[in-house]
């Protein structure tokens, strides 16, 4: 029975690599978007804050699947040409950018009041204060929830399978439909995701213990 799984393992692992690559790219992009949105929300002017809030509201209230399909169907009908890889990466990054922004915003807010006062007492203002005192501490505080969001992101990439990007879930479906062994193969796919995400969570735990708390 497990023979089906082992016979197709190389093929599935190729899908897993695509998942990992996609997740890495999206995590980077989402973090960038998240930082910008968090800063806009906390320190931006009215317009910046407005845009950030609208963006956050949209991402938090719309299912990722809807957005994935929208990118796939809408853009071509409007005339913009986007392939599943680019479209999928953009949508996933945009979606999880909202979650990342929440992570960073909460981290910024959790830096103790005293740190701001101490920094100002030492004569630091604005960007120096942020860069030397506040942001490093915020980043440390952000560590564990950041890893959690990354795990959510990896799981989120499975949705891009529905528009044809050959990551792990779609690869799994193709194998299932060829071998007609859904129990073994989908089970195996779940296990591969488990390995990936559990490893990430272990990194998160390691970060928690290594990094000194503020």
């Amino acid at each position, binding site marked *: 029975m497990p023979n089906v799984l082992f016979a197709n393992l190389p093929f599935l692992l190729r899908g897993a690599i695509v998942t990992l690559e996609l997740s890495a790219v999206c995590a980077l992009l989402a973090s960038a978007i998240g930082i910008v949105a968090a800063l806009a929300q906390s320190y931006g002017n009215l317009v910046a804050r407005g845009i950030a809030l609208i963006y956050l509201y949209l991402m938090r*209230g*719309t299912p990722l*699947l809807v957005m994935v*399909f*929208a990118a796939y*169907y809408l853009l071509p009908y409007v005339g913009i040409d986007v392939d599943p890889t680019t479209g999928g990466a953009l949508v996933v990054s945009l979606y999880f950018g909202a979650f990342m922004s929440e992570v960073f915003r909460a981290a910024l807010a959790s830096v103790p009041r005293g740190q701001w006062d101490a920094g100002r007492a030492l004569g630091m203002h604005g960007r120096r204060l942020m860069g030397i005192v506040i942001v490093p501490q915020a980043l440390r505080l952000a560590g564990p929830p950041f890893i959690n969001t990354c795990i959510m992101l990896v799981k989120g990439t499975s949705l891009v399978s529905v528009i044809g990007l050959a990551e792990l879930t779609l690869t*799994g*479906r193709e194998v299932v439909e060829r071998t007609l062994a859904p129990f073994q193969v*989908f089970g195996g796919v779940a296990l591969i995701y488990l390995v990936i995400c*559990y490893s990430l969570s272990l990194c998160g735990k390691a970060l928690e213990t290594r990094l000194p708390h503020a």
Partner: protein
Amino acid sequence: MMARAMPVLLDGLAVTLELSALAIVLSLIWGVVLVLGRLSHLRPLRLACAGYLQLVRNTPVLVQMYFFYFGFAMAGLRLSGFTAGLLAMVLQNGGYMSEIYRAGIETVGARQREAGLALGMRPFEAFQIVIFPQAVRLVLPPMTNQFVAIVKDTALVSTLSVADMMFRARLLIDRTAAAFEIFADLTLMYLVLTAAVALLMRAAEWRLGAVD
């Protein structure tokens, strides 16, 4: 076209609502069962629950749904798309709920219980009067997020041919090519749904906060 698409999407709304409501209620219950196991005195039970949690948190819901729908059917147990989707959602969100409960209970924690005992209450009384209300207030915000996540996850069952809003929207787009209008409608409906859930929970928070 936007107006003409609405009735079709509203047909799907009933399914989306039904699935969301069932998933929320069953996750709440399953979460209680899990947290009792997670915090039990029996080590094997604790470990089993912790293992279960790792399993559901680290696997995508979509894969779980495919597994329950196609995998079980192949093995002889035929679940409808609705049931398979519901099962996957409850198993996963029940896990997240149990963690929320656990965080609430542990945060309010030992000190409060000691305080209650010092005041002469029995352990169960202490739990009821001191710990539980505080835990409930702590727990409501993350629960709101979880409920919203559940409503959004219901869209996934469209891949198992369940006639929810997402499914109907896709079929309609195939037929009419009015992709923009239909997606606008669909997004609007999900935004309204999630906003409604968030508002309801905010009202619940307010009432519970006002009581204390």
